């Protein structure tokens, strides 16, 4: 057994590389999330002190309807679905949050309780912040408020567009839209997904998803094998998707801008600057 003194002297050495790694993870994930990347550097520094890097795993439930929101999440490479429930088991995806957003918007709107289920749909990095810390920072920082308000607006548009889309468009086109939205957020051509999960997302029976996926596969737009989806032809998939995809993408890119709205490129430059600083 090592003497307690030796153990104590080793401790800082052991801790150092770990801390360094955590820091680099933190920085990388922060750059990944567009909201965090878009706030001024001073604001970000203050936020970073409270942010905690986490790895979200596929299928993890962050909140159930009625749960208190303990943390807000800023996804990096991960992807979180917002599902509304009916009768306790019938679900429908109403929102999809990736690197462009934040999970836990109700907290910012003054409700500490989530009205939806937040389900991790693609595992990966994310930053999280305790609700109390977030609330304090949110009240202090005007740039953060502006970014989050704008994001809330885009999320609202996404939810209402999804509602109309679910009503009128056939499964195949909705599946194509969903795959495109997922691809945009995970920034990868390949991701894991089961038919059952997709059925939940689109609010249809599993058979419906299987048939729709087969038709997209026959058109050589995607490859679907053992739960792995690969997007083969993005342009083709965009043509196969309904118009709702374009409308929502435009919202997130800030297409209908006025003098009050910051152009989308600003986020990109800010991102670059932060990465240079890191």
């Amino acid at each position, binding site marked *: 057994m090592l003497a307690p003194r030796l153990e104590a002297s080793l401790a800082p050495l052991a801790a150092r590389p770990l801390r360094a790694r955590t820091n680099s993870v933190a920085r990388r994930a922060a750059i990944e999330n567009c909201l965090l990347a878009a706030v001024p550097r001073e604001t970000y520094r203050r936020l970073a002190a409270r942010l905690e890097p986490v790895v979200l795993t596929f299928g993890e439930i962050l909140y159930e309807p009625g749960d208190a929101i303990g943390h807000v999440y800023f996804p990096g490479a991960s992807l979180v679905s917002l599902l509304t429930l009916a009768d306790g088991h019938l679900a429908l995806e109403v929102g999809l949050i990736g690197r462009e957003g934040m999970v836990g918007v109700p907290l910012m709107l003054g*409700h500490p309780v989530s*009205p939806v289920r937040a389900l991790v749909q693609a595992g990966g990095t994310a930053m999280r912040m305790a609700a109390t810390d977030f609330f304090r920072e949110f009240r202090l920082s005007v740039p953060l408020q502006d970014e989050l308000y704008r994001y809330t607006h885009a999320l*609202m548009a996404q939810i209402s567009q999804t*509602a109309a889309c*679910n*009503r009128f468009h056939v499964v195949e086109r909705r599946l194509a839209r969903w795959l495109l939205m997922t691809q945009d957020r995970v920034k990868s051509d390949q991701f894991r997904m089961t038919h059952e999960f997709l059925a939940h997302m689109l609010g249809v029976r599993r058979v419906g998803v299987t048939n729709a996926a087969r038709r997209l596969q026959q058109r050589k737009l995607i490859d679907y094998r053992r739960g792995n989806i690969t997007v083969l032809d993005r342009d083709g998939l965009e043509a196969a998707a309904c118009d709702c995809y374009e409308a929502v993408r435009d919202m997130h890119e800030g297409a209908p801008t006025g003098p009050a709205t910051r152009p989308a490129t600003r986020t990109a430059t800010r991102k670059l600057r932060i990465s240079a600083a890191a």
Partner: protein
Amino acid sequence: MRRVDLHAREGEETGFCLMNIPTLELPSLLPYAGTCFAARPKKRAVSAACTPSQNHILAALPAEEYERLLPDLESVALPVGSTVYGADERERHLYFLTAGLVARFYVTASGASAEFAVTGREGVIGVAALLGGGSTPSRAVVLNAGHAYRLPSTLLKEEIRHDSALLRLLLRYVHALIAQTGQNAVCNRHHSLEQQLCRWILSCLDRLGSNELVMTHELIAHMLGVRREGVTEAAGRLQHAGLIHCGRGRIAVLDRPGLEARTCECYAVVKRECDRMLPELRRRELYITTRLRPPLFAW
């Protein structure tokens, strides 16, 4: 506050601000243009004498903040069928509704439309002005003639810069709106037309604060995104069960508890989210009762 005469004849000089916005081309709204609605706002104007505090959000404000806002509020009539905001139209004002009913809905490229949220005296139109998004891809159309007070977005920005009660209330409303939208989406997907019709009638009546809805089956079909025959059939079943009475483009609710039992849980979920705004509202309601006038809202 600018005093206006709501029913001045054309050409008469008043402070009345009529929105120069196109009328909705939904054919189902046309029969209303001259008939049942002509008398409705007039009656309202006489009996209720619109005041901003009829809007639940304004009514919930602390007295001093409410007084500060008053001079900036501009009175606007909302004739039936008019579009408050079109798709991708820049939202320059925040409309606090004091009467009437406004639906927000999407029109898809193929022309199909579906309502995703209705707003009445409990809410505002023009959330994009608040959140800084500029515009929304959906439309807000007046379903039931009413009245609103509007606040320019520039003044709104100033008002909410400091941590105001108005901002807190508006953000809560945004939350309720998001919850309503999401729940309507899942309801449209999984629940029967009859359940949806019940939910829709109940949520409209809550917002109007009345027991009767002036609405044709065709308009309801547009809002729910279904065929008219489906609505007529479902309404027929509800009428047969003695829950509602339909006639001449009006739907009267005869048995509200029965209708509530017939609907899906989505109605209760949305109502709960909306009711969370109430604690602060009650305080103000008390204030109105004691200081200004008896409360007019039944929500």
